[in-house]
C-alpha cells in the first residue's frame, strides 16, 4: 500500500498554486487535508503525476461572517465546527461537522477538500446544497462562482471544477429569519460514513411551512430532496406533513446497496431520518446519530 511515483509541489500562495494547475492540468491533483486523497494514493486508486499541496497557502484559511458566510477552502473542519460565527449563522453546519469521522480526521480535513472530493457519503456537500451555498473557483484565467447544485449534481468523487481550477471559497447566504434545522444520520459505528443522512432547514410563519430545504447523503450522490420539500412547503408542521416528506425523501433518494446495507434499507432509513430531522427542526432541537 505505497503510492505510485508522483512529483510534488508545495506552493505558498494562490497564484503559485494556480500557475502549477495551469501547467499540469489533468495530470495534477490538489492535496488539501489528505483524509481521502492520501488513502486513495496508497491504494493506487489515484495516480496523479503531480501533487500540488496547498496546505502552505495560508490565505485559503479563514471564516468571515459579514452578511453571507464565507469560508476559505483550506479551513480545517475542526475550525469550522468550533466557529461561533458559523454556529450563529447556520447551526446545522457544526451539527453536521460533529458527525464527520473522528477528531483527528476533522483536525486535518478541510471544508474545501470535502466539497471538491464530493464523497457521496460526506455530510458537507449535502448540507451546503440545503443551504444554497456557492463556491468560488479560480484559475489563471480568472474566477467564477458555482452553485453547489451545479458543482456536484449527480456526481460522485467528482465535480464540475475544471482541471486548472482551484476551489478557493465556500459562500453561504444568510439564513431566513426564524429558520430551524434538523440533522440526522445513521452510521454503523460512531465516525463511520453514514448509510444515509439528511440535513433539513425549514422556515415557518407560525405553523405553516414557508420554506423547506433538504439535502441528503449516503446514496449514489449528494442530492436535494425536491419531493420531500414540495410536500412540506405550504403544509402545517406536524406528523402528517413530516410523514409525507419522509415518503418523498425515500422516493428522491438515490439509494444503493453495499456491504453495510441494502438499497431498500437505505431508502427506508432516509424516510425515518427525514421524519426525525423534521421533528428536531420543528422542536428547535439539534441532531444526532440515528
Amino acid at each position, binding site marked *: *500500500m505505497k503510492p*505510485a511515483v508522483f512529483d510534488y509541489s508545495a506552493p505558498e500562495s494562490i497564484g503559485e498554486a494556480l500557475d502549477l494547475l495551469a501547467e499540469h492540468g489533468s495530470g495534477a491533483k490538489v492535496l488539501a487535508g489528505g483524509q481521502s486523497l492520501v488513502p486513495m494514493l496508497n491504494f493506487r486508486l489515484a495516480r496523479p503525476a503531480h501533487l500540488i499541496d496547498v496546505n502552505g497557502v495560508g490565505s485559503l484559511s479563514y471564516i468571515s461572517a459579514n452578511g453571507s458566510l464565507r469560508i476559505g477552502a483550506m479551513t480545517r473542519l475542526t475550525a469550522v465546527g468550533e466557529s461561533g460565527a458559523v454556529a450563529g449563522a447556520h447551526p446545522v453546519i457544526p451539527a453536521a461537522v460533529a458527525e464527520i469521522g473522528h477528531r483527528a480526521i476533522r483536525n486535518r480535513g478541510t471544508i474545501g477538500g470535502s466539497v471538491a472530493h464530493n464523497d457521496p457519503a460526506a455530510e458537507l456537500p449535502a448540507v451546503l446544497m440545503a443551504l444554497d451555498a456557492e463556491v468560488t473557483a479560480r484559475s489563471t484565467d480568472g474566477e467564477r462562482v458555482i452553485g453547489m447544485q451545479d458543482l456536484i449534481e449527480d456526481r460522485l468523487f467528482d465535480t464540475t471544477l475544471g482541471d486548472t481550477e482551484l476551489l478557493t471559497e465556500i459562500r453561504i447566504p444568510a439564513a431566513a429569519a426564524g429558520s430551524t434545522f434538523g440533522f440526522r444520520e445513521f452510521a454503523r459505528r460512531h465516525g463511520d460514513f453514514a*448509510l444515509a443522512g439528511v440535513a433539513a432547514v425549514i422556515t415557518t410563519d407560525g405553523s405553516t411551512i414557508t420554506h423547506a430545504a433538504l439535502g441528503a447523503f449516503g446514496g449514489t450522490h449528494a442530492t436535494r430532496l425536491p419531493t420531500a420539500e414540495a410536500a412540506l412547503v405550504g403544509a402545517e408542521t406536524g406528523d402528517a406533513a413530516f410523514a409525507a416528506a419522509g415518503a418523498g425523501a425515500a422516493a428522491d433518494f438515490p439509494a444503493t446497496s*453495499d456491504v453495510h*446495507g441494502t438499497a431498500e*434499507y437505505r431508502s*427506508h432509513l432516509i424516510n*425515518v431520518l427525514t421524519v426525525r430531522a423534521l421533528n428536531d427542526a420543528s422542536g428547535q432541537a439539534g441532531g444526532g446519530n*440515528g
Partner: protein
Amino acid sequence: MTTTQENRWIGVSAPRREDAPLIRGRGRYIADIEPAGTVHMAILRSPYAHARINGIDTAAAEAMDGVHCVLTAADLEGIGDFPTIWRLPGQKECTTPAFAPGKARYVGEPVAAVVADSRYLAEDALDLLDVDYEILDHVVDVEAALADGAPVINEDMGDNTIIEYTFPGINALGVAGDVDGAFEEADEIISGRFKVGRYSGVALETRGHVAEWDDLRQTLTLHSGSQVASLLRTELAAALGIPETSVRILTPNIGGAFGNQWDRYPEDILVSLASMKLCRPVKWIEDRREALQATVHGREQLQEWQLAANSDGTVLGLKGRVLSDQGAHLHSVGIGPAWVTGAAAVNQYKIANYHCDVVGVATNKTPNSTFRGFGGPEAMFGIERMMDKTARRLGIDPAELRRRNMIQADEFPYFSPGGAVYDSGNYPAALEKALEAVEYDKVREEQQSLRDQGVYRGIGISSYIHVSGFGPSAILGILDYYTGGYEGSTVKIDPHGRATLYTGMIPMGQGTETTLAQVAADHLEIDIANVRVVWGDTDQTPYTGFGSAGSRSNVAAVAVIKAIEEIKAKAVRIGAGLLEADPDDVAYADGRISVKGAEEMRSLSLADVAQQAYWAHKLPEGDQPTLEATYVYDPANFTTACGTHVAVVDVDIDTGKIEWVKYVVVDDAGTIINPLLVEGQIHGALSNGLGGAMLEEFVYDEETGQLLSSTLMDYLVPSFTDLPDFEIHHLVTPSPHTEGGFKGMGEAGCFPAAGALANAVTDALSHLGVEADQTPVTPSRLWSLIDQAGG
C-alpha cells in the same frame, strides 16, 4: 524466620510488566527491525477468485532499476508446501503452497513476489508483472459449492467436499446414544438454521517477517510475528530443505495474534527463500489490504440443527449438520475449528443422544483456519439459539429451560457425547449468579411496561463451555493432530538467588510474561522483581508443542511449577549439606532453606544455596553444579472453562439499531493467577465476540467472487463506543487436572457473545417473531427481518 504470606503472587493483580516499554514507545515490532542491507518484498496477489495462470512475464519487472529478484512458482523447485497438521480420517490431502499452484483459487492468493530496494519500488515493479490469467467460474457459497456442476476448486479432490465427519466419531470418545429413538419419543422437535458469519482476528499489527540468510554460516534467522515459533522452525526448515539446526526464529513484540498467527503462511517461505537467493536480509510487512485478503479468516459455517424435547423442557436429543466454509484450501489446522464445533455443540447440557455431520467445503475464498475460539463460539451460537427457540416453543422461560438441562456440579468428570471430557465446573451456579447480577426478574417485568411505551427491550442468556489447555499429546494423537500439546520451561537460579525463566510461549497481549513471573515468584516465594522471563528465541527457549488454545496458564504455568519443584528439591539437598542436617529435616519455605522447627537459627537464603551450587565445592553426591531445571509438561486432560453471559439490549424497530443496556459476565476459569489480566482478557475476547455478532464480516460478491470487505471502512472492528460496559463476576472451580487448578480463559469471552446478543435481539422482537439466526446481526439485516414480519 516464621512463615508469612509474603511473596505469594498467585491471585494478585500484578500490573503487566510488559506495559512500560510498550506504552512508552520502546516496544519492538517486526517493522522496527531493519538490519543493514535490508531489501523489501512485495507480493502480487490474484485479483480473481478463480483463474488459471498460463504464464507470468517477469522481464519488465526484473529489468527495473532497484529490483533484486522476482519469484514465481518456477522458483519453487525443491521447496515444499506447509502441511495441514490436523488430518482427520477421510480428509482429502491438502497443503499450503508458497504460490498459487498453476491456478489462483481466491482473491489474494500469492502469485509472484518482487524484492527491491524499497517497498515503494517493489510495488511499482508488481505493476510491471504481466500475468496471463484464464478466468474460471468461481463459487463463494457452501451450498452452491456442493451443488452438481459447481466449479471444482481443487481438481485432485474430485469435488468440493473435503471431508464428511460424523459425531460421535470413530476416533472420538463420545457415544451417540439412541438419536432416532429420542426424536421418535419427543413431544416437540425444534429446528434451526444458522449462518455464522466469516470474520477474523484483524490484529492491529499485521503479519511480517525479516529473514536473514547467512551463506557463510548457513543459518537462517527469521524475525517473525508467529505465535508458535517452534512449529514454524520445524516446518520452515522442512519446506526449505535445510536442517532445522540452521534455523533460528526470533519473535519481538506482537501487536495481536488471535490464533491467526498460529498458522504457517506462504510468505514465511517466500521471504526466507528470497533471502537465501540474495544472501541479504529481506523484509516483508503485510499491508492492511493483504491482511484482510490473505491472513486466514475464521468461523464461517452454515448450521442446521434439530432438537428433540419433551414438553416439560427435557432435551432428549440433538442432531445437526454443519457445513464449514473452508475457503480455497485447508490451511494449517484443516477443518479443526468445525470439528471442535461438532465436539462442543452439546455445551453444558445433558443431551445423551447426539449426532452431527460436519462437512468441510471448499469455496473460492481465503482459507478459514485458526481464530480465537476455534469452532467453540460457532457451536455456542447454534446451541444457545436452539435453547431459546425451544424455550419459546415450549412456553418455558429460557433461564428455566437451561436450569432443567444443565450438567450438575456433582456429575464431573462428564463424558460428553461430542467426545470431550469435561473436568469440572458448576454450571447452575454460574447461571444463577448471572441472573442475579442482571436482576433477571426485574428486567423481565420492565420489559413488559417498556414495550407498552414502544421500547423493545430484550434479554439474552448464553452459557458456554470452553475446552482449553490443548492438550494431552496422546489425545491429540488419537485425534490425528500431528503435533504435541506440551509446554516446556527452563528455570535457572543465578548465583545471587534470582530466577530466569525460559518459555517457548510467545506473549501476544495476554500478559504471559507477567503471569509466568507470578507463578515462578509464588512457587519460589521470592519477590516478583527477582524473576526475569525470557521468550522469543528458539535458540534459547524450550520447544513448545502448541502455543495456543489457552495453554498458557494451564500448561505453561504447570511446566514452570514442575521445574521449580525440581529446583527446590535440589536447593534442599544442597542446603541440608551446608546446614549439616538430614535432607528430610530441611524444607523450602519463604524463599529460604531451613531446618524444620529451627527456622530462626538454622536457615539459608536461596542466594546462599545458589552461590554454593555455582561454586560447587561440596555438592551432594549425584547433583550437578548450578541450580537449574527444565520440565516439559504434557497435561493429563483438557480443562473446561465455563460460564454464563446475559445481554440486555433495546432494538430501534425503525432502524434496526441495537442499543446496549447491560452485559453481565459470569466466568469460571478455575484458579485465577492475575484477576486484572483475566478481566482484560474477558474484555478483549468479548469485544472480539461481539464484533463478530454485530459488525465484523468478510463479505464476498457472488457475481465476481471479490472480497468486498477489503478495507477497514468496509470491515468494521468494534471500538469502545460500540460495546457495552462489561459487568464481570467470577466463580472459581479449580481444575482437578492441573497443578494449581488453572484453566485457559484467554478466548472464553468470545464463546457466548454472539448467542447472548442474538438471543437478546430475538427476545426484544418476540412480538414480531423475528429470529436473529445470522451473524453479524447488522441493522440492515435486522430491519429487513422486522419489515418482513410486518413490524
